[in-house]
């Protein structure tokens, strides 16, 4: 029994730092990115190029008062923002950043990610309901129907990958794709899966945008319809935690996409794999998220649900069948 | 037949045209004798569009307005506005309806009617022109003209609990 307690604790601290920095600085990145896309500069005042802006925002949010509306359910109202943060941080535990950098190499890490993600949905539902605001309740209802709808094609797509790799361990899935981009699950040029895996990638990417409640699928927030949706009544750090949870969900989504489809820490040319490739890939994906958000207008909730139920789910079902067929035949 | 002529004919069926003659004031001291004035008193009269911005000036009574509205509706005119004008000297409130036409140029029909100030009651035309609903509410709001049978005659621009009619000439804030 020489398992040291310090290793998990160190990893825990590492994850907390990674999560905290990302949550803070993705906000800055988003604002800078939006600024560049919109031909303006973004935050410039606090520090060089506004680099201290997250700190200033954090101080502002921390010093504000968390107002609980009189019609609200006080306990659930306060618990919900915390619940929004838990899954995002927990998910990072099983993400393999590189061959050796992984806090916990679980056999069922893919499953864990999805199991934990359901808590985030609970947070939105409870937060929206507990606010006692009609906009928030509508938003909570939207968020749940949207997340439930998009979880199905997402899981079906992941099943394809699990079938190909024969494992639910994220590390094994990434190991399976080593040796250049032609081995990545998105291309899979080394066998017949290349015929449909790019479709799976597109489905998965759309679903991850929808699952993280990002524009153009940000039906739950939809500031021009529902004011700010489930966050309408939140002030101070309650709001801050929801925002940080949202950014962390983006990070987790990007990590998952990278591991499942883009070969994890693998170099595109099959040489010198390493953690930096992983970091580069996730930030390219995060940039794509930001880019999409600031380019497209919002869809409409029923059209969004139709997209999932009528297009994505049939396609992903076909994908599962094709995967099974090709695995069995070749 | 141009739109103006057919509108005029349609109104003629509802409100016959008439003019009254106001005899000139005989007591013209030293000045030359004025001719008798001919004043348009009911029905449709063509007026100079370039000068007044209207092509037809229609005078009617409160009872006739619904028929006039039906006639104008039949001619495919659209409602532009409803305005009130307070005439405290005559002890009357005038309601001015303007209608215009989508296709034909230079068509504007101004329908005017007067009701006593003490009991301003006009039948609503919101059943004919749905847009009149809000315009009538506005006129009620500012002048206190009561549009009978109006589905929802409540204050529109002023607060719900206002108890005054600000555009009447005797209203002092």
């Amino acid at each position, binding site marked *: *029994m020489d398992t040291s307690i310090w290793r998990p604790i160190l990893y825990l601290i590492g994850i907390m730092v990674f999560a905290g920095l990302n949550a803070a600085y993705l906000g800055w990145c988003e604002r800078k990115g939006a600024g560049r896309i919109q031909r303006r500069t973004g935050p410039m005042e606090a520090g060089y190029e506004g680099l201290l802006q997250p700190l200033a925002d954090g101080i502002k949010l921390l010093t504000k008062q968390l107002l609980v509306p009189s019609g609200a*359910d006080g306990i*659930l109202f306060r*618990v919900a923002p915390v619940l929004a943060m838990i899954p995002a941080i927990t998910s990072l535990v099983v993400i393999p950043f590189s061959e050796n950098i992984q806090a916990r190499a*679980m056999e069922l890490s893919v499953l864990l990610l999805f*199991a934990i993600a*359901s808590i985030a949905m609970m947070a939105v539902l409870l937060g929206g309901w*507990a606010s006692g605001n009609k906009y928030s309740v509508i938003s909570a209802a939207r968020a749940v129907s949207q997340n439930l709808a998009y979880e199905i094609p997402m899981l079906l797509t992941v099943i394809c990958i*699990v079938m190909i790799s024969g*494992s639910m361990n994220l590390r094994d899935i990434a190991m399976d794709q080593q040796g250049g981009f032609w081995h990545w699950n998105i291309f899979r040029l080394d066998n017949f899966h290349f015929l449909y895996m790019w479709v799976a990638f597109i489905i998965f990417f759309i679903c991850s945008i929808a699952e993280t409640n990002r524009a153009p699928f940000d039906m739950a927030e939809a500031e021009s319809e529902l004011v700010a949706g489930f966050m309408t009544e939140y002030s101070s750090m309650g709001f801050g935690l929801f925002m940080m949870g949202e950014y962390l969900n983006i990070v987790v989504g990007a990590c998952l996409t990278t591991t499942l489809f883009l070969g994890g820490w693998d170099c595109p040319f099959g040489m010198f794999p390493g953690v930096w490739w992983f970091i580069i890939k996730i930030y390219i994906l995060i940039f794509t998220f930001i880019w999409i958000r600031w380019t497209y207008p919002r869809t409409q909730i029923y059209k969004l649900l139709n997209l999932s139920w009528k297009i994505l789910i049939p396609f992903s079902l076909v994908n599962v069948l094709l995967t099974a067929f090709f695995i069995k035949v070749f | 037949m141009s739109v103006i002529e057919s509108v005029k004919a349609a109104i003629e069926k509802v409100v016959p045209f008439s003019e009254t003659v106001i005899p000139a004031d005989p007591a013209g001291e030293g000045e030359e004798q004025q001719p008798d004035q001919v004043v348009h008193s009911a029905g449709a009269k063509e007026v100079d569009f370039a000068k007044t911005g209207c092509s037809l000036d229609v005078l009617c009574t409160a009872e006739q307005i619904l028929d006039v509205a039906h006639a104008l509706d039949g001619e495919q005119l659209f409602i532009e506005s409803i305005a009130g004008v307070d005439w405290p000297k005559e002890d009357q409130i005038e309601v001015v309806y303007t209608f215009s036409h989508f296709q034909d140029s230079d068509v504007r029909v101004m329908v005017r009617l007067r009701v006593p100030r003490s009991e301003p009651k006009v039948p609503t035309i919101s059943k004919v022109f749905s847009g009149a609903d809000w315009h009538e509410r506005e006129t009620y709001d500012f002048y206190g003209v009561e549009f009978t049978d109006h589905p929802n005659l409540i204050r529109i621009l002023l607060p719900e609990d206002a108890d005054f009619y600000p555009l009447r000439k005797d209203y002092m804030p």
Partner: protein
Amino acid sequence: MQPLVCPSGTLPSLFSAEGFAGIIFLLTVFLVISGAVIAVVSKRLVRAVAGLAVCFTGLAGVYYFLLSPFVAMMQMLIYVGAVSILIAFGIMMATPEDKITPDNKYLSKLIGPLAGSVGALFFAGFSLLAVKTDWQVFPEHAAADGSIKAVGMTLLTTHSMVFELISIVLLLAIIGALVLARRGRN
């Protein structure tokens, strides 16, 4: 996977892996009990559902300690992620009354003790089972649990009946939510 067991009779140090695991085990047990208590005691239905979700989360932890991570994950995915959310959704959208007010006062007085005694009976039965059973420290099949091949084999052969029953639970959850949500609309 190595089972974390302490040699009998000694209490592990707090900062050893065993001690840490022990604390987390206590936490999961606390979650189960507190969640259950909230679910029963709370007067607001949504809070009760939240308590239920907490209880399920704790149960998932217990499964994990029983060396069944797959079941633990499934517990989270299905019971927390689907069933509780659907119940909460249904209650939020369809309950005419926020607080439960039974029609029959005598019946409501009767239900409490009845539920209590049934619960006590179950508790006693399970406790008896737990005491009487000859617990294996490290069950044979547990080592294989987690690899998808083993899971697939198990679900489609030995435990296929259970697998089908789970789908019935899900079906019931969906139908229940639909019924609750539809009731308001005629």
